[in-house]
């Protein structure tokens, strides 16, 4: 059976001539591009984590709010915003911070004591802009800057990574489609011979074996071409972006494994499905 599949598969390849290497190239190109895309996506991973970092927003409360009132207000916020982490900044700590930033206040602070400072609360959150909703609270005097540069950069990187993954998926889907069309055309070309083989008592495995061999050989070639070209292209790109200080590692091993699986496994799977449905 195996010998028959190899012999007839080889004949199919030989009859095609140059079509097989061209087909291998056609498979290798989208899979290489997918590999490059996935490698670049890996580079974005540290930038994406920026979006997950927490930001701290300071909130100044009304000076008339005493310690108990501040505690009550904080409890309410924790209940209504479980994603926030609230920390009260004690007046002494606030006085130290203010003196550090504004030395001319040191004298006033010493004279009046830190109790004259309004109560302050720090809100630790991944969505700093969400703290702005407190501005309408009567207890709130002012809200500090809600800087979210990290989050925006992380968000953009995440979206870009999603686009890259989608592009890689589309490229691999294109490769699978190519494999399926290729097998379909081969079946069409050999439909008469398949019918004769069946009438002569050939089993399904005997009929399908040669086609699977004829798919597997260019698919293996495509896998080798994809891996080599991805390593070369990613190496070149890594050199280009190295001055930017990005983590320009090589191709992750998982990407190489994915490429081999995609180049060999997916066309073979497409071939099996096509043979099952149309042979």
């Amino acid at each position, binding site marked *: 059976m195996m010998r028959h599949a190899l012999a007839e598969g080889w004949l199919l390849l030989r009859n095609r001539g140059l079509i097989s290497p061209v087909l291998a190239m056609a498979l290798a190109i989208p899979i290489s591009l997918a590999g490059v895309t996935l490698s670049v996506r890996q580079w974005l991973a540290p930038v994406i984590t920026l979006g997950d970092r927490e930001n701290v927003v300071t909130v100044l409360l009304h000076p008339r709010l005493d310690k108990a009132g501040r505690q009550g207000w904080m409890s309410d916020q924790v209940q209504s915003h479980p994603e926030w982490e609230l920390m009260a900044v004690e007046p002494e700590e606030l006085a130290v911070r203010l003196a550090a930033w504004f030395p001319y206040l040191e004298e006033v602070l010493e004279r009046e004591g830190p109790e004259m400072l309004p109560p302050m609360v720090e809100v630790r959150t991944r969505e700093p802009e969400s703290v702005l909703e407190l501005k309408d609270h009567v207890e709130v005097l002012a809200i500090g800057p809600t800087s979210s540069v990290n989050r925006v950069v992380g968000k953009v990187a995440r979206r870009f990574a999603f686009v890259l993954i989608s592009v890689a998926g589309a490229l691999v889907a294109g490769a699978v489609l190519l494999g399926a069309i290729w097998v379909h055309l081969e079946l069409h070309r050999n439909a008469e011979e398949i019918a004769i083989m069946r009438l002569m*008592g050939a089993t399904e495995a005997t009929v399908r074996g040669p086609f699977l061999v004829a798919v597997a050989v260019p698919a293996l070639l495509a896998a080798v071409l994809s891996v080599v070209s991805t390593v070369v292209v990613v190496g070149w790109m890594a050199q280009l972006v190295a001055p930017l200080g990005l983590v320009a590692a090589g191709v992750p091993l998982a990407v190489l494994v994915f490429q081999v699986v995609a180049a060999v496994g997916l066309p073979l799977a497409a071939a099996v499905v096509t043979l099952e449905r149309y042979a």
Partner: protein
Amino acid sequence: MIRIRGLTKDYDRRQILRGVDLSIDAGEMVFLTGPSGAGKTTLLRMLYAAEQPTSGEVWVAGSRVDTLSRSELPALRRKVGIIFQDFKLLRRKTVLENVTFVLRFHGIPPRESHRRAYKVLKRLGLHHRQSALPESLSGGEQQRVAIARALVYQPRLILADEPTGNLDADLASELLSLLCDINYQGATVVLATHDHTLLESLPARTLVLHRGGIGYDGMWPP
């Protein structure tokens, strides 16, 4: 060897076969005849499950053919040698490869396959053309390759659809003699033909298809 009960076949509301009942014992040689369009080829095709009947039962070598699954068909077809009216040769394979190819499905090693194929081709006078491709052969030669392919694995049942259609009188007579020999060795032979000369050259059981049924079943000439 063959048992058919109430076999009916319709094509586009046109009834080709109507309630055919038939029994052929192992070792028989049977001619199947009738005018063009009488259903000879259709009846043969249903014996090797290339077509499904509209209704009725078809039994071949102990298996009910009309209910066999796709995975069970190869085993049935390996028991049957089929000689097609249109040869059905593999275009990209040589004469020898066309004959040895089928032996692969029987698990016969290449060396033994070549020996057997050469022997059959020699008997059919085609051994000198073993390396030729089918397209370079005459109609008669292609017919003989198809016959060699059907005989090479010594099946217990041979179904021949107009096997002499492309042969001259001498070759037709030689083929009939070959089929008689095979039948004499115990194989069942069913030969569909509309060639009356062929029918008259050998007294044998003959089934005449007429208006979708078996109009005559007996020795020919009557």
